[in-house]
């Protein structure tokens, strides 16, 4: 079959971990409702697997051997690595799909050099999305990581090439594949500036996704992103990879900068697949 769904969503740990601290409960609940709608939209496409293109936070990879791109081809994955009480997501095991992961990886490698891993620990970057999208943890997940933690970082045109390679790979397998990219847009996570959001920058970035404007999306430099969107802004790579996989414009289903307690502009969207 091929790619049957492509979307984006936020993954900041506060989304679950600090749910009870939120003052503006109505906007929080609206965000949760939009995430639940995303779950239903994915389920309607009856995927065999969910590929989560994530920006992990040192659950598996460190500066001793940091892959720019890595695909998780293990039988199963477990998480969160964080204190479950802190994240408010219980420790659980999530099924993988080793056979499909192998086939996708082999296809991707025809145009992009990716690493693979048969062992994969899940941090909030994947656990938070799964908490909303596959709350019973019954849909097999293939985790994908793009290093967004610190330089040297894969340039954006290579991120685009990776997304396209993923799309091509999906086209070669009989399974129905759903893909979500999960990152933050502008944010300064885990610093004293947590809660700072450059909403104007976010809106411009999301607009580029909405226009499916590849040239504009790839024109960001890491220096400017760091300055205007924080170290968390490096995670736009996950959204750009999902955009490249989809090929079409983003239908932005939710965005708010009014939940700074979650430390990120909260986002939900679905791409048209072209």
């Amino acid at each position: 079959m091929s790619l049957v769904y492509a979307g984006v969503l936020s993954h900041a740990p506060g989304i679950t971990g600090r749910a009870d601290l939120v003052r503006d409960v109505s906007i929080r609940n609206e965000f949760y409702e939009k995430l639940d709608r995303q779950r239903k939209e994915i389920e309607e496409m009856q995927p065999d697997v969910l590929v989560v293109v994530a920006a992990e936070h040192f659950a598996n990879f460190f500066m001793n051997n940091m892959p720019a791109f890595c695909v998780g081809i293990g039988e199963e994955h477990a998480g969160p690595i964080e204190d479950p009480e802190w994240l408010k997501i219980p420790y659980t095991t999530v099924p993988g799909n080793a056979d499909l992961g192998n086939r996708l990886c082999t296809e991707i490698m025809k145009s992009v050099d990716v690493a693979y891993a048969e062992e994969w620990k899940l941090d909030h970057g994947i656990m938070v999305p799964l908490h909303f999208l596959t709350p019973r943890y019954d849909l097999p997940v293939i985790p994908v990581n793009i290093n967004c933690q610190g330089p040297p970082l894969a340039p954006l045109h290579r991120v685009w090439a990776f997304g396209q390679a993923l799309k091509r790979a999906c086209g070669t397998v009989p399974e129905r594949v759903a893909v979500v990219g999960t990152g933050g847009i502008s944010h300064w996570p885990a610093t004293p500036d947590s809660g700072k959001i450059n909403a104007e920058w976010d809106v411009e970035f999301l607009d580029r996704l909405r226009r499916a404007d590849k040239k504009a999306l790839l024109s960001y430099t890491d220096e400017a992103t760091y300055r205007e969107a924080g170290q968390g802004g490096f995670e736009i790579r996950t959204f750009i990879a999902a955009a490249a996989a989809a090929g079409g414009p983003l239908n932005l289903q939710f965005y708010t900068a009014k939940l700074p307690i979650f430390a990120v502009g909260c986002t939900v969207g679905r791409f048209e697949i072209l």
Partner: protein
Amino acid sequence: MSLYQLQKFLYVLNRDQASQRRYRDEIHELLNDFDLTDEERQALVEGDIGLLYVLGVNGQILMHFAAFLGIEWFDYLELMREGIRKHGPVRAGVYAMTGGGERFTQEEKTR
């Protein structure tokens, strides 16, 4: 090199339950596996979030360590600000404080 070792210690601790047990039971033996300065060793033994932040530990690694220590969210943010007040700006890495110590959420301002 030392910041690399410091972060590696925390990376291993954050994702490995056996190391977490050793952190609680025999921290000095665990620390011997890494090439650390006395200042870094002390910061790890004391769970000194402010100093670790100023030394340049990546925020994602530091945040998970703070969660492991059971530090509440707003206390974690304040400990980093205290570290800046005491030791000066972040010395390395990309997790510098850029907001001048401001609190960015209503929830924290009125806690």
